[in-house]
């Protein structure tokens, strides 16, 4: 792609009846990068991905996928794992992977051979001849993921890939995503779990309520918020609060506040001079979670976390 981007979207809008599901989303996914779309459930992530892939058309806005504005014409060069997992239960794992490759133009025999190799690499070689209905939910999900990349696509789009996976398979999936990136593929995935986005993504977009709230690198996202200082004095007194920045708040016997624009040096000198001393001091870059809270609001994040917790419990129960 001459532009250096595997995928771009310019002001995508999609309405379902009276509800605006996606409201002017802009995205640019650099070639060879791992790009995350982060947002709570119902934020418009799946609709955005479907529009980008040409499964549904936007009401307005433009998209370019692998150098073309007709995404369906390059579907053989794309791998897609939809949010709703689905496989034919009567198919063997090997055949299910080969079938998904065949849909994208990979010969059956080649697909079967690759399926065996991929399953073995993922530690699932023993399940190659097993029917899907015999596999655990996590294994079946992994088989589907392998099916979506068996044809070695240039662009891999994964909708909530970590959802429903146990920690072992989540780790396995993270390794696979990194391996695919190393192969040269561009990876775009949606998630509502910030840890994965923070660990994997070169860039990300945060969507909430159908709107794009942030687009850039993880580091840039964190840099949008000031570094926080956690200070514990040796000698506390009511006068100390007047020396600290006005937004400083009590925190475990100390104070937490944003590092001033002028830096910590002058403030520390004043604190020492006034005899408050330093029992403890740490400087913390804000996490993606903090950025996310700032962008989408505490209430939404709490709801997301409750949903993630419920999902994890269900997974543990299954």
């Amino acid at each position, binding site marked *: 792609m001459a532009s250096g981007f595997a995928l771009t979207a310019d002001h995508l809008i999609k309405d379902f009846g009276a509800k605006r599901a996606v409201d002017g989303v802009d995205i640019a996914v650099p070639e060879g990068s791992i790009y995350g779309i982060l947002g709570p459930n119902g934020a418009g992530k799946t609709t955005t991905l479907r529009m980008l892939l040409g499964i549904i058309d936007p009401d307005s806005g433009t998209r370019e996928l692998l150098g073309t504005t007709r995404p*369906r014409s390059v*579907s053989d060069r794309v791998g897609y794992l*939809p949010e709703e997992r*689905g*496989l*034919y*239960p*009567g198919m063997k794992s090997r055949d299910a992977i080969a079938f998904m490759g065949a*849909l994208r*133009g990979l010969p059956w025999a080649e697909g079967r051979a690759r399926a065996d190799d991929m399953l073995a690499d993922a530690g699932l070689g023993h399940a190659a001849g097993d029917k899907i209905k015999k596999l655990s939910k996590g294994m079946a999900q992994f088989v589907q993921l392998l099916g979506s990349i068996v044809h070695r696509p240039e662009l891999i789009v994964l909708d909530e890939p970590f959802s429903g996976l146990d920690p072992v398979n989540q780790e396995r999936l993270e390794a696979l995503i990194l391996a695919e990136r190393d192969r040269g593929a561009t990876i775009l995935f949606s998630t509502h779990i910030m840890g994965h986005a923070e660990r994997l993504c070169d860039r990300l977009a945060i969507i909430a309520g159908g709107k794009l709230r942030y687009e850039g690198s993880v580091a840039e996202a964190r840099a949008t918020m000031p570094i926080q200082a956690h200070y514990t004095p040796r000698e506390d007194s009511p006068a100390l609060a007047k020396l600290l920045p006005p937004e400083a708040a009590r925190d475990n016997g100390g104070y937490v506040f944003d590092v001033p624009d002028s830096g910590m040096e002058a403030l520390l000198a004043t604190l020492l001079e006034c005899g408050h001393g330093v029992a403890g001091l740490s400087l913390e870059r804000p996490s993606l979670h903090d950025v996310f809270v700032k962008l989408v609001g505490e209430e939404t994040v709490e709801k997301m976390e409750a949903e993630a917790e419920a999902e994890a419990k269900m997974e543990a129960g299954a």
Partner: protein
Amino acid sequence: MTSHFRQAAVIARRDFIATVATPAFLMFLLAPLFMLMFALVGGTGARMIADSGDDAQRLVILADADYAARIEAADARIRPTFPLGIAPPALERRSPVHDVSGAGTEAEARALFSDSGVDVAAVLYGSPDAPRLLIGSGSDRYADYLALLAETAARDVRSGVPPGDAVTEITREPFERTSATIGGQQSLGFTALFLLFLLTLLLAGQTVSVLAEEKGNKVIEILAAAVPLEAVFLGKLIGLFGVALLFIAFWGGIAMIGLAAVPDSRATMVAFDPAIGFGPFLALGVLYFAMGYLLLGAVFLAVGGQANSMREIQMLSLPITFFQMGMFGLASAAAASPGSGLALFAELFPFSSPFAMVAKGASDPALWPHLAAIAWQLLWVSITIALGARWFRKGVLKSGPSVFRRLGQALRGKAA
């Protein structure tokens, strides 16, 4: 376009193998055998019940020995001309106690109807010059037969021919027919029409539920992301069409082997020779089946694609069956009145055209109408598939209630 066909072929292959490589397919393949077995058992049972009733029925001759012998001789000559199963009840001779010309015989004849051992249908009594018939209720047809026997016996008496002897020697010479009969061709046309209807009813109707699997196990989104839904639609149709062809090849092969095993079958079949010849007729039959299957199958597939549950699919099956029966009725009426306006309509209406045209092939020697009909049907197959796929695309990825449920909700809303 090539890519579309390649993708459709992948889906067709998956569907074909998934259908054929299951124990359930064996049941499906052998279903006609079960049908035949049940028909045989049921038919035999019904026949036994009917026969036990028929066996009790009698036509009685209450006459002196000479007259009774003449009646029996006439019966021996005429009875074999009746086809199996519709012959009159057996003849039974009773000797009269009284003089046959007296009033006592009539009383004897009436008394026979009270005989609890047999069901007397009719009684012939009297003499060759003055035969009389006593006819039980509902036995007029059998009485006609007895009257015919009495008439034959009377002629024999008047011509002085001994009982059972022929008046003249008839020379019989077999003739092997070399051309078809009009009735034979019409029978063949109707049989082919019925067979085509039955096969499309049984086989094309299956497509209505074929997408339930993809919708149920969520594979539809994978397919929709990987290939155009038009290719999914076409692949599904072709996959099931392959299953249908396998079914037909299996039973067609068995029928051919069975026919070849029947001695003199060729001579028997001459009367049914289709006007365009057996080879072209069979080829046309397969082509018309393909057209009928693809046309109706595309409609059913598109309609089934809108349904969200097996219950909705079951509900849809009834109107679809009625629609097919309507097409059968239209084509049958057309076959019964070839050349009529109705026949032309049935031949032109896309969904009845395959049925009407296959019947036409049995009696009309012209080939060009078939070429034109196949081109016409092919056009409609393409239109139906394109429209069906478009409708399918709109409905299949839409979440929430199906189009039928929304329709129901809208109607309820209006009523309220």
